[in-house]
């Protein structure tokens, strides 16, 4: 794969599926306690070279603590961290082959942009000429050439973010850790920067580990995402898999919007599962893999955009269909979300793309509607 010729297009990059590839970072059964509080609870994870890996979770889930253990600011209470084949136990931050971009950027306020970027190189005692060349290269990379002599407080938020990035990659670390790198930017700038970061990572061929609480950010940039909750990994998957095949209700709910319909499994044969649901008052027929056996309680998870809404009944209103009343319509611009109160008492959401420029919609408040979906549009979850 050549990033230069292909541009930021990712082709089949999945070393985690290849048993022969060697991980760059190995996290082995790491636990971190602060007093009686367990911030990270017995987690294991491999991260591969050139991977863009995201740790995603709500605040307090342990993602930042895990990253700080990679950087060396915290020592694991138990377990092992191996980077590039070397055990990191007892190795202080200044001797680790990783660099970090801090959430607050942590720019040195008394040094100008150039000095900030050169700092790490000076610590490595590189020759002066090489430092100067490398700083110029970095300034060009982040497009800050004309700001080289400004102090951090003379820069805008976006510029500071780029200085922090340049400073962290100047030493060409094996791994770059990014702690909420875009958290302080406004929405528009954040979206632009996401793609810049992606480009940069491909260009440099570096491994990026990013901590974020923003699912869009993680979905846009990462090769794989680890969803964390209460100090543990809930699921580690590529973004599309995370969205289309969540393994738990927590992940399904955390990533995007979802309808969870409770039911009882009546049949599970070679990827064809049938549920009886009190919520829809009928049968749900699903083409999906699940460990659920006949008689188990399970949830059918359906994304709102995969449900169709109609005033007319389908051919078979007993299968993959729910009937109810439009309660509320959320107009978001590109889509409209219909909140439907089902006859059986539950509720569901369906979102419809607004493809034509019509203000009056055919379906409106208080309408009786049918929600339908195909057998391969959702998954069955047991926990």
């Amino acid at each position, binding site marked *: 794969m050549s990033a230069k010729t292909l541009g930021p297009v990712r082709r089949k990059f999945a070393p985690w599926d290849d048993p022969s590839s060697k991980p760059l970072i190995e996290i082995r059964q790491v636990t971190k306690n602060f007093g009686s509080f367990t911030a990270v609870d017995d987690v294991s994870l491999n991260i591969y070279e050139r991977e863009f890996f995201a740790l995603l979770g709500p605040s307090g889930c342990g993602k930042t603590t895990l990253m700080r253990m990679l*950087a*060396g*600011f915290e020592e694991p209470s138990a377990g092992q961290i191996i980077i590039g084949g070397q055990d990191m136990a007892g190795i*202080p*931050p*200044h*001797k*680790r082959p*990783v*660099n*970090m971009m*801090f*959430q*607050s950027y*942590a*720019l*040195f*306020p*008394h040094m100008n942009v150039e000095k900030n970027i050169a*700092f*790490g190189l000076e*610590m*490595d005692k590189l020759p002066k000429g090489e430092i100067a060349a490398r700083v110029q290269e970095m300034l060009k990379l982040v497009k800050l050439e004309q700001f080289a002599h*400004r*102090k951090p*407080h*003379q*820069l*805008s*938020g*976006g*510029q500071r973010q780029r200085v922090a990035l340049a*400073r*962290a990659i100047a*030493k060409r670390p094996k791994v770059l850790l990014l702690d909420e790198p875009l958290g302080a930017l406004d929405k528009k700038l954040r979206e632009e920067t996401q793609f810049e970061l992606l480009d940069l990572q491909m260009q440099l061929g570096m491994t990026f580990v990013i901590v974020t609480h923003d699912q869009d950010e993680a979905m846009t940039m990462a090769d794989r995402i680890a969803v964390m909750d209460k100090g543990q990994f809930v699921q580690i998957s590529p973004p599309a898999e995370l969205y289309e095949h969540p393994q738990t209700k927590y992940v399904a709910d955390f990533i995007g919007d979802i309808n969870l319909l409770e039911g009882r499994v009546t049949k599970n044969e070679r990827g064809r599962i049938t549920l009886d649901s009190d919520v829809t008052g009928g049968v749900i027929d699903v083409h999906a893999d699940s460990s659920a056996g006949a008689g188990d309680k399970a949830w059918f998870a359906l994304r709102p955009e995969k449900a169709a809404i109609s005033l007319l009944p389908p051919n078979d209103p007993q299968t993959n269909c729910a009937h109810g009343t439009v309660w509320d319509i959320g107009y978001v611009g590109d889509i409209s979300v219909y909140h439907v109160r089902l006859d059986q008492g539950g509720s569901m959401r369906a979102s419809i793309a607004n493809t034509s420029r019509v203000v009056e919609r055919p379906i409106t408040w208080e309408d009786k509607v049918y929600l339908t979906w195909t057998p391969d549009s959702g998954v069955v979850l047991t926990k």
Partner: protein
Amino acid sequence: MKRLSAFNVVSLTLGFSFLYLPIVLLILYSFNAGRSVAVWGGWSTKWYGSVFENDQLLDAAWVTLQVGVLSASVATVLGTLAALALARYGRFRGRTLFSAMVYAPLVMPEVITGLSLLLLFVAVNLDRGFWTIVLSHITFTMCFVAVVVQSRLASFDRSVEEAAMDLGCTPFVTFFRITLPIILPAVISGWMLAFTLSLDDLVIASFTTGPGATTLPMKIYSDVRLGVKPEINAVCSLMVGVVTIAVVIASIMTKRQEVERERAERAALAGR
């Protein structure tokens, strides 16, 4: 922007007149040709002349200055170390006692501090004089330095230090290249505070001094006890003048820095 109400204007005017009138009168009467403190006898600068002929006063001023510079410098080093220990090292054994010892002198009556230090010097048979005053001043002013520096350390982003270490800096080098430059303004104002407190101190110096070491406040105090003299007005006016000029220059400098900083920040935001 809101205008001040009449009530606020009146209270500010009265308040500041109360604060400044006595000092203004003191300075005014230092130029009084007559000996009286109440009767104006015309303008004169003769009292300033006699200050500079008064060897005792000049000696005392010189001693005070030396004590001030020496003790403020040592106190700044010790106070900064204490602040680092308190702000950065979390819990360590004996921390409670340590922080109590650092904070207690701030509220301790000077008479007690003075007495206890004197008794220490007597107990270890140390000759009292210049050096015992210096030691005492270091002890009580380092606490003020520690408080000033600690509040600066508390308000600064720890991740800046972590970033330096992440980039390959040892903890020791991090202190000198990152932490110290950032907290330097607080360290300097700590020094100034320690210096002024030392210049000011009458009680502790009176307890801990010995023969031959008289500071300016001690000299002024003993003269005042004998009655008000225009010469003392002149000395006091000089001291007020020096301090005022120093403080005004310092604050104009910080103000200018702030203005420049704000302007740069605005420019940066506009040109993003």
